């Protein structure tokens, strides 16, 4: 068994003593023993998956670098998704509340007086749009 094969498994596990240190880089006595155990198990023909299962069942969730997706730690995986969904809804509501009351359709000349300076780009070419923007900003800093 090469060290690289052992490390590939150890990388996915935690040091049993120190907090948050992966097993492959830790040199406490306990870690050395665990890596030897991994080496023996690999030599005995166990697959990396079987070895992971062994450590998880023997020592619990805390030995896994990646929290399992079931049980208590499934919260960790579900909440970010809910967070993204909630953020989407909040963003949508915020944008809606920030939008002006929709103008009556039959009233096109009643542009907001402030929009005059900026004007709605009327699709008159990229450069024209950009030129106006740059000029305005150069004006601002003059």
């Amino acid at each position, binding site marked *: 068994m090469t060290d690289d094969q052992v490390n590939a498994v150890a990388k996915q596990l935690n040091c049993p003593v120190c*907090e*948050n240190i992966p097993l492959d880089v830790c*040199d406490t006595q306990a870690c050395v023993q665990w890596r030897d155990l991994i080496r023996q198990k690999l030599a005995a023909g166990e697959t990396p998956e079987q070895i992971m299962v062994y450590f998880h069942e023997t020592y619990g*969730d805390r030995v896994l*670098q990646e*929290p399992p997706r079931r049980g208590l730690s499934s919260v960790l995986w579900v909440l970010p998704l809910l967070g993204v969904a909630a953020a989407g809804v909040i963003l949508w509501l915020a944008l809606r509340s920030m939008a*002006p009351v929709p103008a009556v359709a039959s009233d096109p000349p009643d542009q907001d007086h402030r929009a005059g300076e*900026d004007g709605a*780009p009327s699709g008159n070419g990229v450069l024209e749009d950009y030129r106006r923007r740059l000029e305005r*900003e150069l004006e601002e800093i003059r």
Partner: protein
Amino acid sequence: MIPDIGLITLILSGVCALFALAASAGARASRPAERWAQAGRNAVVAVAPLLTLSALALVYANLSGDYSLEYTTQVSSRATPTVLKITALWGGQNGSLLFWVWLMSLFSAGVLLIKWDEDRELRLYVTGILAAVLLFFTGLVLVYANPFARWWQLPDGHISAAVLPPAGSLPFAAADGYGLAALLRHPGMIIHPPFLYLGFVGFVVPFAYAMAALLAGRSGDTWLRATRRWTLAAWLFLSLGLLLGARWAYDVLGWGGYWGWDPVENAALMPWLSATAFVHSAIIQEKRGMLKTWNVFLIILTFCQVILGTFITRTGVIASVHSFARSSIGAPFLAFTAITLLGSISLLLARLEDLRSDNKLDKLLSREAAFLLQNVLFVLLNFVVALGTYFPILSDLVANNKITVGPPYYYQTVGPLLVPLLLLMGIAPLVSWRSASLPALLRLLWPPALAALLLTAGIFVLDGKNGFALLGFGVLAFSGLITLAEYARGARARHTLSAESYPLALWHLLGRNRRRYGAYLVHTAVILMGMGIIGTHFYQVETQRTLAPGQSLVVGGHSLRFERLELLPSAETDKQVLAARLSLTSGGNPRIIRPFQELYDNGERITPPVLVSTLKEDLYVLLIGWESDGSSATLKVFVNPLINWLWIGSLVFVVGTLAAAWPGRGAVKAERRAWRAREAEG
């Protein structure tokens, strides 16, 4: 004697802060309000020199080896080199808290001295808030974490540390101290905490101003304008603190990487995330008078995470809930965080009516909306990192099941959020304020998109193993090209308008609008850093072999032959340095490198890497084991592609932030004009 001066000035600092708080609270009721306000300000300003004396007294104790002090015994020793005796000021918990509050007093005094005549409506409240925060921290250091506590021998012979002598006890002094832990003796560890702390405490300024604006019922943008540079300075220091910490980890910890998603690292990253959101959304309020509530919320979030971050790094609460119970500063910290959070949020809610937007959103496709999306993404990042950091505590407390949240979790949750964020970083600057036209935008976007696709295809042909890496490089190329094109277009406009040469046009462009082009420089830096991060993350190669003399290992085109073990000379008396002499061949002539381990007398071991750095990659070689008869050495070798672009990008990041924030005369004037213009318009 000298430590007593430190203790006395520390007490006086607390008294001054208390007086300032009372004076600024009382100034509203009493008649000669101006005089009380002045008195309050002077008291806050006085805290700075007082705490300076206090910190100097502690440095003196560490330098002179006053082992009658508990703190000096912990962090200093006779063998400690002088430089480390000085930096031992922040080497342990109590000293670093004194150092922390000292830096905060400097910021507080600075802002009150510089801004006193400018912001008349807010200054009374700013004084009060600063005084309250200073009062808490000086009180904390004084009562719970006093670095001036002395050793006492109790009547029963036991030795204990206390500020006031226990009844019937005699003074006691240790013969020698323990000195700093070996890991903390590295130069990176000496300069990284001050920057991190400066970043942390700097946010007290925008926080105090935001709270002052709420208390004064001044909904305007005064607080944002007054603190823009202070916020950027704090943000820059925090960024530097994070980057220096990353470099320290890379150079000292010897696991081949620079960021381990450790709770202590995350604690410093979280306020940076919310502060980065704030730095951007402040621009919308400044330009368009929108997102006022949101900005106050972000600065509250940032400040609370700063307090929490200090607390986590100083108490080790995440490592184990039990260390929290043992820590004396845990409860007051948590109480202060809760009071700050609840107080400021309820103040915010009470003033919601004042914080209504001046303007409406004209169109969904606008710079404002892009900024908002960017903010949401940063807050989501913050949320995910917070979840991973705090969940182990919760699971331990609630279910008695300590779950470990390691790097793989963050790769899978943070990674996907970075993709839209980086895209937005490229696209948003092209989107006009108020209302942008989609066809016009698309016409600006397709050339860089096409070029990025071609580049990605090129990388795929060369080495296309990993789809995620390709996605990352593609996004970086896209946003990077757009950012470069912005520079090119601006320079071309100046070139045609004023017939300047292109380099001169570019220079003037930066000079005339430092805020904008400095920010683009920061964006360019993010692209460069992204190259390093993606390169190392997806293409890192590692191998470990035990070699007998004469044997070689080959990794990523490098051949390393082990020759023999050597003892290297050591500057410090309490350590030995054992090295493996290796002959390295990377295509050209062989050269000798000597990866080593430092073995300290107290049993500590440090395994720093030997680096062979090029723009293409780092070869990162560690000596991790050996037979003492020299018959073998165990090497661990990493190849980290593109990593140096992370460090190059860091430098550009600093330059860009300085360009954007540096208060030149022209810059300040131009800003005032722009603000007036917006006020006249709104």
